C-alpha cells in the first residue's frame, strides 16, 4: 500500500514515476476518511487544497522542476499558521481563526513541494502531555495494549495528532513543535521518530507562541532518515525571527549513514531516577549495547541539576505563556464574549476561550511575574536554568552525544493523570532539561514493553550538531530493527 511507504521510498517512487503525487495523496485522503473519525488526529482536513497541491507537484515533476519534497503528503500541527486554512491551536479562543499569512516553516515546506493533508490535533496551545486538553477532543493512540483492543490510550502531547497520524499511516510525516517534550514524548508513545532541533534551527515566525525561549519546530516520521529529509526543508535562517540562527543547513540525511566509530556517548547518571521502571532501564541498557556494537564508547557523565529541570520549566514556561497569551483579548481576532465594559469583555472572553490547563498556566505565570514574587520565582528559575545549561556544556566537553530514555512510561490511558497536574508534568522529566538548554534531541523507537506498547530512546546532541544526533539515532534504529506496527493503521482497523 502507498500509505505504508517511508517518505524516502515514496520520494523515490515519485521520481521513478511508479505512481503520481495525485495517487499518493488520494491514498492518504482515503485512509484519513476511514480512520480519522475514530482517531481524531486531524482537526481540519484540507482535501481539496491537498489535491490541487498534488496536481501542482505532478506538473512540476513533468517540467523537471520537482522540489525535494514534491508530492509528499504531510500533517501540519494546528499551531503553524497556514494562509487561508483555519488554525486553531486546539483552542476555543482561536476556533474560527483563518490566518492571513503563512508560517515560515510551512512556507519552506510548500516551497519544497510538500502536500498538506490537514491540520493535526494537539493539546490546547501545545500545553499538555496527553492531547487531552484539546478543545477539539482527545486523540486516540493507534497502538493497543496486547489483548485489549478496547483500550483507549493517549498519543502523548502536545503534538499528539501529528504523532498518531504518522503512526497510523495517515501521513508520511508531520510537523510538530516541542517546548518541553512535545515532539519527543508523543514520538515515543506512538512508536515513531521525532526530533526537536537546536533552539534557533527553525524559524518560529507564524507559529502560535507558547513559551518563546523554548518553542522549537521539528518533524515526525516513521524513520530517522525521513525526519532528516523533513528537517532539511523546514530549517534555515529567517529575518522575521531574530532568534533563528544565521548558519547554513547541513545535509542531515547524509549524516544518518555516518559511522559511530570512536564516538563517545554519555550516560547521565542522574537520569537513573529512583522508581524508574525495570523495562525502561533494560531498554536503555540495550541501547548502550547497540551503540557499543556500532563502535561507540559509552561514558558515564553527570548532569547534576537534572532533578530541578521540571520545576524550573514550570516557572519559565508559564511565565512566558502568560505574556504571550495576553494577545487573546477578543478585540482583534478570535473569540469575543461581550461585556458591559472593555475589562469585562476581556475577562469574559478569556474565561470562555481558555481551557483548564491553559488557565492554570496563565495564572501561575502571572503570579511568578507579579510584583513581590518575580525574584523568588522567575529570576530564581532563570538562574537554575543557567546551571542546567552549564551541566550540558560541561558534559559535551567529554562526550559527543547523550543517550537517555525518552519518557518514564509507555502510553497511558485516556483520562489518567487528569486530576493531578503535577503528576502529568512528570511525563516530561527526561525531555525538559534539553529544552531548557536549547540543545537538539531526538526520540527513536527502540522496542516494545510487556504490554506490546512502543518505547523510545532519546539522543541529545551539542547545539547545532543535529548531524551527530541523526547518526546516533540511525544506528539505534538499525540495531533495534523495530518493525512493530500499531493495531490501527491504514487498511487495518480492528
Amino acid at each position, binding site marked *: 500500500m502507498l500509505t505504508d511507504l517511508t517518505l524516502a521510498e515514496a520520494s523515490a517512487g515519485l521520481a521513478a514515476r511508479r505512481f503520481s503525487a495525485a495517487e499518493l495523496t488520494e491514498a492518504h485522503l482515503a485512509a484519513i476518511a476511514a480512520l480519522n473519525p475514530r482517531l481524531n488526529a486531524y482537526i481540519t482536513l484540507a482535501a481539496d487544497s491537498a489535491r490541487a497541491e498534488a496536481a501542482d507537484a505532478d506538473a512540476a515533476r513533468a517540467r523537471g522542476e520537482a522540489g525535494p519534497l514534491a508530492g509528499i503528503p504531510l500533517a501540519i500541527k494546528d499551531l503553524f499558521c497556514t494562509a487561508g486554512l483555519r488554525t486553531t491551536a486546539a483552542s476555543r479562543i482561536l476556533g474560527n481563526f483563518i490566518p*492571513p499569512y503563512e508560517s515560515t516553516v510551512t512556507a519552506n515546506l510548500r516551497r519544497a513541494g510538500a502536500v498538506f493533508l490537514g491540520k493535526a490535533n494537539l493539546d490546547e496551545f501545545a500545553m499538555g502531555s496527553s492531547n487531552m486538553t484539546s478543545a477539539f477532543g482527545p486523540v486516540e493512540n493507534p497502538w493497543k495494549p496486547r489483548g485489549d483492543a478496547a483500550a483507549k490510550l493517549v498519543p502523548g502531547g502536545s503534538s499528539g495528532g501529528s504523532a498518531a497520524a504518522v503512526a497510523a499511516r495517515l501521513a508520511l510525516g508531520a510537523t510538530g513543535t516541542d517546548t518541553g517534550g512535545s515532539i519527543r514524548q508523543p514520538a515515543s508513545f506512538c512508536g515513531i521518530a521525532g526530533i526537536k532541533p537546536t*533552539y*534557533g534551527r527553525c524559524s518560529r515566525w507564524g507559529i502560535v507562541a507558547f513559551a518563546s*525561549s523554548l518553542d522549537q519546530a521539528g518533524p515526525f516520521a516513521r524513520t530517522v532518515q525521513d525526519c532528516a529529509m523533513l528537517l532539511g526543508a523546514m530549517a534555515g535562517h529567517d*529575518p522575521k525571527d*531574530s532568534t533563528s540562527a*544565521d548558519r547554513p543547513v547541513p545535509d542531515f540525511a547524509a549524516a544518518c549513514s555516518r559511522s559511530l566509530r570512536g564516538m563517545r556517548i554519555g550516560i547521565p547518571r542522574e537520569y537513573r531516577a529512583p522508581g524508574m521502571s525495570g523495562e525502561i532501564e533494560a531498554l536503555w541498557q540495550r541501547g548502550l549495547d547497540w551503540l557499543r556494537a556500532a563502535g561507540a564508547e559509552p561514558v558515564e557523565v553527570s548532569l547534576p*541539576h537534572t*532533578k*530541578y529541570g521540571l*520545576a524550573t520549566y*514550570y*516557572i519559565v514556561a508559564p511565565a512566558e505563556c*502568560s505574556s504571550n497569551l495576553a494577545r487573546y*483579548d*477578543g*478585540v*482583534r*481576532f*478570535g*473569540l*469575543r464574549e*461581550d461585556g*458591559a*465594559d*472593555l*475589562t469585562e*469583555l*476581556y*475577562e*469574559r472572553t*478569556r*474565561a470562555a476561550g*481558555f481551557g483548564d490547563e491553559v488557565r*492554570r498556566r*496563565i*495564572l*501561575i505565570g*502571572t*503570579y511568578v511575574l*507579579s510584583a513581590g*514574587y518575580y525574584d*523568588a*520565582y522567575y*529570576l*530564581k*528559575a*532563570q*538562574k*537554575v*536554568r*543557567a*546551571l542546567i*545549561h552549564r551541566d550540558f556544556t560541561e558534559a559535551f566537553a567529554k562526550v559527543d552525544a547523550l543517550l537517555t530514555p525518552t519518557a518514564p512510561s509507555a502510553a497511558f490511558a485516556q483520562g489518567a493523570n487528569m486530576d493531578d497536574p*503535577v503528576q502529568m508534568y512528570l511525563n516530561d522529566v527526561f525531555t525538559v532539561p534539553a529544552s*531548557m*538548554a*536549547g*540543545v537538539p534531541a531526538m526520540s527513536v523507537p527502540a522496542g516494545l514493553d510487556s504490554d506490546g506498547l512502543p518505547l523510545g530512546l532519546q539522543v541529545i546532541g551539542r*547545539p547545532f550538531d543535529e548531524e551527530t544526533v541523526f547518526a546516533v539515532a540511525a544506528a539505534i534504529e538499525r540495531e533495534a530493527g523495530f518493525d512493530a506496527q500499531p493495531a490501527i493503521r491504514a487498511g487495518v482497523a480492528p
Partner: protein
Amino acid sequence: MSLDPATVRRIARLARIHLDEAEVPRLQDELNAILGWIEQLNELDVADIAPLTGPAQMALKMREDRVTDGGLREAVLANAPDRAGDFFAVPKVVE
C-alpha cells in the same frame, strides 16, 4: 508560600480571566500544589549565578530601518470580531 482565595482572585484579575466564586477553592488547591512542588528550587543556592533568559547564545542582528510590509488593512481586520469601518470596535471606554 501558599495562595489564599484573595490572591487567587487578584491573579485572575491581573490576567483578565473571569472566575466564578465557586471555582476559587479548586483553583486555589491546584495552584498551591504546583507552587508547593516548585519550592524544591529553594534547595539551591544561586546567589552568584547570572540568569539565563534563553538558549540563543547569539548577538541580536541589526537590520536596516525600512518598511518591508504594509497596506494590509483588510487582512489585518479580516478576523476582527467587530469592526467599524477601518477600525476594531469595542464597547465604549469612558475613564
